[in-house]
């Protein structure tokens, strides 16, 4: 048993998560930029994909990302009430809730998808979210449903 645990821990150390982050143009992408211009160090695990609004992200997009090898998917939008497009982020929240519910049927841990609110000035918050989420994914290990391509 201890040997297996050791092996797992070693794998966990070498495993570098691949995380796709869907960031909205107005708030979270800008917040990520501020984190960058403030030179806040973050693990190199997250690749941002810019969308105009977090409401653009549909569940199929997220699942495709996992099928193609993402270990984690982060969706970030404006804080509730602040959405540039009035209520888009509320729809994102609902879609995310649905997604989390069906994750069990997909043999994926629900914690592999995260929805966060990051405003345009919250550089440190974005960095914190990235650090926390990367650590979580690292702990969960590599994506079990990745297509072998």
């Amino acid at each position: 048993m201890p040997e297996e645990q050791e092996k797992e821990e070693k794998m966990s150390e070498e495993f570098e998560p691949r995380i796709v982050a869907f960031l909205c143009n107005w708030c979270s992408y800008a917040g990520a930029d501020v984190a960058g211009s403030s030179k806040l160090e973050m693990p190199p695990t997250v690749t941002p994909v810019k969308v105009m609004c977090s409401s653009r992200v549909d569940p199929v997009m997220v699942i495709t990302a996992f099928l193609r090898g993402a270990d984690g998917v982060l969706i970030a939008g404006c804080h509730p009430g602040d959405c540039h497009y009035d209520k888009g982020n509320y729809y994102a929240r609902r879609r995310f809730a649905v997604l989390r519910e069906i994750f069990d049927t997909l043999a994926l841990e629900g914690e592999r998808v995260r929805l966060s609110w990051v405003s345009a000035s919250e550089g440190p918050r974005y960095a914190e979210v990235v650090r926390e989420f990367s650590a979580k994914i690292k702990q969960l290990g590599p994506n079990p449903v990745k297509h072998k391509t």
Partner: protein
Amino acid sequence: MTKKQQKAKEQVLVIGAGMAGIEASLTLAAADKKVYLVEKEPLFGGKVIKFEEVFANMECSTCMAAPKQQEVLQNDKIELLTLGKVKEVQGEAGNFVVKIEKKARYVSLEECIGCNECFEPCPVSLPNEFEENLGERKAIYIPCPGALPNIPSIDTENCVRFTKGENCQLCKEACMFEAIDFDQKDEEVELNVGAIIVATGFDLMDPEQISDCGYNGKANVYTALEMERLYASNGPTEGKITLRNGKEPTSAAMIHCIGREKAGYCSGVCCMYSFKFIHYLKDKLPEITLYDFYSDLCMPGKSYQPFYEHLKDKTESVRFQDLKIAHQNGKVRIKYKSLADQDKTLDVDMVILAPAIMPAKGASELAGVLGVEQDENGFFGFQSSDRSPEESGRDGIYLAGCVLGPEDIGKAIAQADAAAGKVIALLG
């Protein structure tokens, strides 16, 4: 009409690039007017960019302001003239000749990419006014992270090249883009415009002018703007709220109506932002005990009282008659008279003052230059029911925002669009 007069009608001057000035400029540009947007500071955005959040929806202030600022920077019809002050206005509606004194920035707007490498080597450090003196800056500086334009300026009142004639070139040597140019000169810019919109905003009453408010810049008594910078995620403490000695406060009191008696009017927004501070403080320090001292709760409109109702359980609301603040054993001591005429005392760790809102520094000088009226409180224009608030008394010159009286952002934006509407109707 001469060609020059015809051209003047296509051009408008907006003085002050805070939220009201920005809105007026964007509306005028949409109507195909050429806008000269003059701002005295090296950055633009006014007071709103100092806030982290705005009441009552607690929206992120930057998220609200930044897209508008970007629109201004990317709009060909708007020319932003930072470090500019209006010195002279001649002429009349449809044809004003304006002289602007534009201070040199000493950094090229075209070459600089905003990498910030020039700050570190600068030998001069001083308190940063943007951060309400809670943080420091260098003589070559950007007031805060995220400032727009993202280009530093040299403060000639503190840079040793200007104050002592020393040949310090440390910032220039650190710049990879040859963007620093000590030979830049202050300019006088002459503009020919058809109309002028004044949106110069406000400043808070200096608390040191208010007797018994306990403010000395060193104790744990803060002004509203200092509180904003403490809570701001891009502020001097990155949002950490501590006392001057670094410890976290266990109790805090918001004192509304400070300076109201001296000013002679109610500033309208302080109750609301004091409630906002309840939200700020509870967010960072959930265990903190809070008090709100007020003479009247001013929360007009359909959404302000609901905001208070939602927050009032998190604070003790105390109505006072007279109030004095002093310091006692490291605490802040509030001595007040309740409505029932009882004398009471309360000791807290931290006090946040809501000083009266006054016309911005230099307002009277500007009123003289523009030839416009000021009311008995120094605000521009007229407090009358049969004139639009945007009227200044001089044809072709309109007002928007706190220059005409203390008010919230919604009113300022409406006035900005109204002033723009009047300009468009005037100039055709």
